[in-house]
């Protein structure tokens, strides 16, 4: 696969810069005064849960229901991850076994 070096560097630089600005933001803005606006505190408490749910949908965006092989591997592996995590609460185990399960399903079972 050919890589567009200039484009890739630009995207990486932008993502890096935005991440740094976000991490520095509270130190730059709230460094002097102690009180953080209520609206910011509120979004900090509730927004991450919404974002993560949207990201799960984002990861599963390409499944469709035209055939079993287009949704069953992702659906089954996702349920496995949820089940494993509720049971063992071990992040590595949940992600590891879930990924292996998905790989086996798409590579061997539903070819």
């Amino acid at each position, binding site marked *: 696969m050919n890589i567009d070096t200039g484009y890739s560097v630009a995207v990486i630089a932008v993502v890096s810069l935005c*991440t740094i600005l976000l991490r520095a933001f509270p130190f730059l803005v709230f460094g002097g005064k102690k009180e953080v606006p209520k609206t910011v505190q509120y979004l900090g408490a509730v927004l*991450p849960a*919404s974002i993560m749910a949207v990201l799960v949908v984002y990861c599963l965006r390409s499944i469709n229901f035209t055939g079993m092989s287009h949704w069953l591997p992702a659906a089954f592996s996702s349920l496995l991850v949820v089940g494993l995590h509720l049971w063992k609460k071990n992040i590595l185990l949940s992600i590891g076994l*879930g990924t292996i399960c998905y*790989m086996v399903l798409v590579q061997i079972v539903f070819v």
Partner: protein
Amino acid sequence: MEQQHKNKNPIIFAWKQSIPVMLGYIFLGIAFGLLLQNAGYSFLWAFLISVVVYAGSMQFVLVTLLTSGAGLLSAVLMTLFINGRHIFYGLSFVEKYKKMGKAYPYLVFSLTDETYSVLCGTKIPEGMEEKKVFFWISFLDQCYWVLGSVIGALAGSYFTFDSTGIDFSMTALFIVIVVEQWQGAKSHFPALLGAVCGILWLIVLGPDQFILPALCSCVIILLLARRKVFWAEEVA
């Protein structure tokens, strides 16, 4: 515990605190490296990204951005949404970090989800300098992450195995985060809102366009529903 902390070397103390992150970061780093290599990028790219971006979930999304040829504006917006939560980590360290001297800029840069949680839970033993411990925990954590991503990218290029489906590690990561947040949440409204907005916009706009409208509608609805949700958060 007291016995363990007899050792006054801040590096060793920091390393002990960072062991849980070490396992997680090396493992997830490998998954990221494999994914990146799969997209055609060598281990040098993995090294570069893990050094300058250093943000777990965002790096996985970054691979998708690069392979889909996303525009710079959508890269900015995605970063703001996905890493926006980092603002709230810094908030708890604003006072503390002012006293950190030369390490201050690096500590701010390297404040990831995992490092934040380790630093929050670290009790500095008597006679040990807090800023040294904080620096070494933060620095070691990033080393694990960089190491993992380089190993992953190298493994992907030297061992030819069918890595189809390795991208599910990103899905699994986000599902795990959702499960953990769900169990710790006082109100499930935000998570359900995210799922509903995500699915509705996906149906309306299709897989390439839906995420930013979905995230924006979450922010707007959460602000509109503020009284209701905030009440639930505060009371519980």
